[in-house]
C-alpha cells in the first residue's frame, strides 16, 4: 500500500515527507528585529529633540551614520560570504547611537569612517551580531577621537545648524563649552538644572535631553527589552560618588545633579551600557557592571584629561563581561554553585 492510498480518508493528503525537527515545535513571537525596532522607537524622541535644538544638520548626520552602518554591514557580509542580516535592524541601531554620540558640526565623512570601524572592524570581524566584545558605536566614537577638534566642537544650545555642507566653515559653528567642560574647570555650569534636564545645553546630538532619554528607557523597561539593573546601578554609583565627593567646594546636591544630567551619562547608562552583546546576562553581573561603569566614569571625569568618561568606562567594563557572568552564575535549581553539584 503506498502512502497516497493509506491517506485516502483525508481530504488533504499527507505529504510524502514530514519534517523532523527538535522540540519545541512552536516559538514565541519575539525576534531580534522587533527588539531592535523597540530600541529605535525609544531613541526617536531624543532624536527629534536633537534636530529641534541643533538644526536640520543633526538629521543629516544621523541619516548618514545609519546609512553608512547599513551599507558597511551589507558590504562586509557579502565580502565574507555571510548571510546579509541588515533586516535585524542592529546595524541601524548602531548607526543611530553613533550619531547620538557625535557633535552636529562633525564633517560628514566622519560618521562614514566611524560606521566602518563600528560595523566592519568591531562587529563583523568578530563574527557579527552578538559576537563583538565591545560596543560598536562607542568604539567608533573613541576611534573618531583621533580627530580631536572635530569631535570636540559643540555649538551653543539653541544655535541651529542648517547647513548641509559636508564640512562646515568656521562661521557656521561657534564653539561653546559643554556643561561637562565647566564642571571640569571646577565650577557649576551656567545652565540651570531645568535646562539641563530638558536638554537646553551644548553637547552631542543625542545626549542632551535627559528627560526624553529617560522616557525612552522607561519604554524599553515596559517592553521588557532591558532590565533596570544596569541603568540604576550605573547612575546610582555616579550619584553616590559625586554626592559624597563633589569635585569643587559647593553645594553637594547640586554638583551631583549636574554630574548626572551633564554629558552622556543618561544616554550611556540606558542605551549603551545595556547593549546586549557587550553587557552581562545575569542580574548580579549587571549590577556589578553598572557599578563598575559608574566608578570608572567618575574617576575619568575627575582625574582624566577628557571631560567625559562614559564611553571609556563602558568600553573598559565591556571587556570584563565574561568574568562578571562567570562570577555571578546563578545557583542551579537543586544544585550547587559553579557546577560543583553532586
Amino acid at each position, binding site marked *: 500500500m503506498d502512502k497516497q492510498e*493509506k*491517506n485516502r*480518508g*483525508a*481530504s*488533504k*493528503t*499527507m*505529504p510524502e*515527507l*514530514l*519534517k*523532523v*525537527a*527538535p*522540540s*519545541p*515545535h*512552536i*516559538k*514565541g*513571537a*519575539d*525576534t*531580534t*528585529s*522587533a*527588539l531592535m525596532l523597540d530600541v529605535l522607537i525609544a531613541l526617536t524622541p531624543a532624536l527629534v529633540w536633537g534636530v529641534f535644538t541643533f538644526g536640520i544638520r543633526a538629521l543629516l548626520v544621523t541619516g548618514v551614520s545609519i546609512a553608512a552602518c547599513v551599507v558597511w554591514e551589507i558590504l562586509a557580509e557579502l565580502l565574507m560570504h555571510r*548571510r546579509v*542580516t541588515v*533586516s*535585524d535592524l*542592529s546595524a541601524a541601531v548602531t548607526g543611530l547611537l553613533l550619531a547620538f554620540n557625535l557633535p552636529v558640526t562633525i564633517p560628514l565623512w566622519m560618521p562614514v569612517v566611524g560606521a566602518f570601524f563600528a560595523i566592519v572592524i568591531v562587529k563583523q570581524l568578530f563574527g*557579527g*551580531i*552578538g*559576537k563583538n566584545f565591545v560596543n560598536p558605536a562607542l568604539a567608533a566614537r573613541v576611534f573618531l577621537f583621533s580627530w580631536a577638534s572635530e569631535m570636540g566642537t559643540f555649538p551653543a544650545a539653541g544655535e541651529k545648524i542648517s547647513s548641509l555642507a559636508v564640512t562646515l566653515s568656521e562661521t557656521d559653528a561657534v564653539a561653546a563649552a559643554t556643561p561637562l567642560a565647566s564642571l571640569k574647570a571646577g565650577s557649576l555650569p551656567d545652565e540651570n538644572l531645568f535646562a539641563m534636564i530638558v536638554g537646553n545645553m551644548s553637547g552631542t546630538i543625542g545626549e542632551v535631553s535627559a528627560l526624553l532619554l529617560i522616557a525612552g528607557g522607561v519604554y524599553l523597561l515596559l517592553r521588557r527589552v532591558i*532590565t533596570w539593573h544596569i541603568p540604576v546601578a550605573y547612575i546610582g554609583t555616579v550619584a553616590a560618588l559625586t554626592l559624597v565627593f563633589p569635585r569643587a567646594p559647593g553645594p553637594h546636591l547640586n554638583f551631583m545633579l549636574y554630574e548626572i544630567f551633564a554629558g552622556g551619562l543618561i544616554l550611556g547608562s540606558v542605551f549603551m551600557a545595556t547593549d*546586549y*552583546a557587550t*553587557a552581562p*546576562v*545575569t542580574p548580579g553581573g549587571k549590577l556589578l557592571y553598572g557599578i563598575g561603569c559608574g566608578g570608572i566614569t567618575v574617576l575619568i571625569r575627575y582625574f582624566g584629561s577628557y571631560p567625559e568618561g562614559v564611553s571609556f568606562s563602558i568600553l573598559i567594563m565591556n571587556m570584563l563581561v565574561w568574568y562578571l*557572568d562567570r562570577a555571578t*552564575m*546563578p*545557583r*542551579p*535549581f*537543586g*544544585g550547587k554553585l*559553579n*557546577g560543583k*553539584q*553532586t
Partner: protein
Amino acid sequence: MAYTFSGGIHVEEFKNTKKCRIEALPPPSSVSISLAQHIGAPAEACVSVGDTVGIGQKIGDLPEGMLGCPVHASVSGRVKSITKKVQSSGAAAECVEIENDFLDTVWQDVRPMEKKLADVTTDEIVSVVREAGIVGMGGAAFPTWAKIKSAIGKVDRIIVNGAECEPFITANHRLMLERPASLINGVKILLKALGVRTAYIAVEDNKPDVIEKLEELVAQSSMISVRVVKTKYPQGDERQLVYALTGREIPAGKLPADVGCVVFNAETCAAIYRAFADGMPCVSRIVTVDGDCVRHPKNLLVPIGTSVRELIEFCGGLTREPSRLINGGPMMGTAQWDTEMPVTKSTSAVLLFSDRFGRKNAASASCIRCGRCIANCPMRLMPMYIAQFSKIGDMKRAEEYGAMSCVECGSCSYNCPGGVEIVQYIRVAKAAIKTERARAAADAAKREDR
C-alpha cells in the same frame, strides 16, 4: 494565590479541545503494540504468531523485579506478526501486530479485585499495578509499580500531576472533568499503598471547571486536597511542581522521593483504579488530536497500538498540508516522520502543524545575548552559555555550567529572539557528557581490574 515556581514562560495555550468530550475511537482493524513502550528493559513476547488473544491478555512480559512492565492486547483477534519496528523515538523495538476480529472478547483473567481496599496489602497493590502494565502516562512512561516500590517509607506526600502545562493538550483536563471519581479512587489506592496521609491534586488555574468539580468531590476527604497552581510553563515538570507545592528543591540528579514526595500523572491514577475495579490493564488512553491542520480537533479514547493515521481520519482529516506531526505536546513532544506511528501508553497528544505554524521569522539564528533564556530557565541555568560551549565542542565547560541539570523543557528555545535552538544544543552536550562519563567509568573499572 496559586502555587508556583520561579522562571518559566507564558506560552499561548491553544487549549482548543478543552470542551471536547472524550470520544471512543472505533476499534481499528489492526494494532501494532510495542513491547518497549516503557522505561527499562523491553518485554518479551509471550504469545506467538497465529494465537488468538482477548482484550487485556498479556502479550509481553519480563522477569519480575526487572525494571520494565508487561504489555497487553488492546483488541481481540489474531496475532499477525511479531517484528522489530522503528519506534517514535527512533529506536527499533519488537512489536506485536494484532488483527482485530471485532468480537471484543475480554480476556478471561480480567476480573475485578475481590478484596476491599482496606484489606489489600502494599505488595498486592504493587503487584496489581505491575500486572496491569501501568506506566507514567504524562509522557515519561516510567513503570508505576517501580515508582511506588521505590517510594515506600520515603515519602510523606503524594502529588497528582494534573497541571497539563503543555499547550494544546487537554487529555488530562477532560479526564479530571469526566472521570474525577476514577482519579480520586486511584489516589486512595496510592495513599493506601504508600501509607501516606496527604495527597495533593495539582491543577493549573486555567481549568476552573476541574478545580470546582474536584474540590466538591474531595470536600469530605481529610487526606486528599486540590492545589491550584499558576498557569505557567513548565508547571507540570515534577521538579517545579514539587517545589511549588512543598517548597522542597529536588537536588540535581535525584528523584522526588529524595525530598519525600512522589508524583503521579492524573491519568495514571485513573488507570490504577481501573486495574482494581475492572481488572482491566492499561490497554487504552486518552489522546488529544489537534493542530492547525486537523479539521475537527478531538479528545479520543484510543486502544494502545492504533496508528495515528486512524486518529487523524476520525477527526475529519486534514484542512491543509501538514509539515510536522508531533507525538506529545508542542514543547517537548517528538516530531514523527510517518503517520503509521502507533499510539503508546505515553502518547498524550497527536499534533499536526503546517509549515508556517508557530515558526519564527528570524533573519539568522544568532545569540544576541539578550538574557531571556537565563531569566526563563526554571532550572536557573545559563542556557545560552551552555549552548555556545556545546556548539564549539567544549563539553567540559558545558558540564561545569550545569548542562546535566537541564530538564529540556524548551523555555529557552521558545523565547529566543535570535531563533537559536538552544535546548537542542544542550541535548547534544548532555549526550556527549553522558558518553564521556560512561567512558571514564569503564576506564576506571579497567584500571581496577589490573
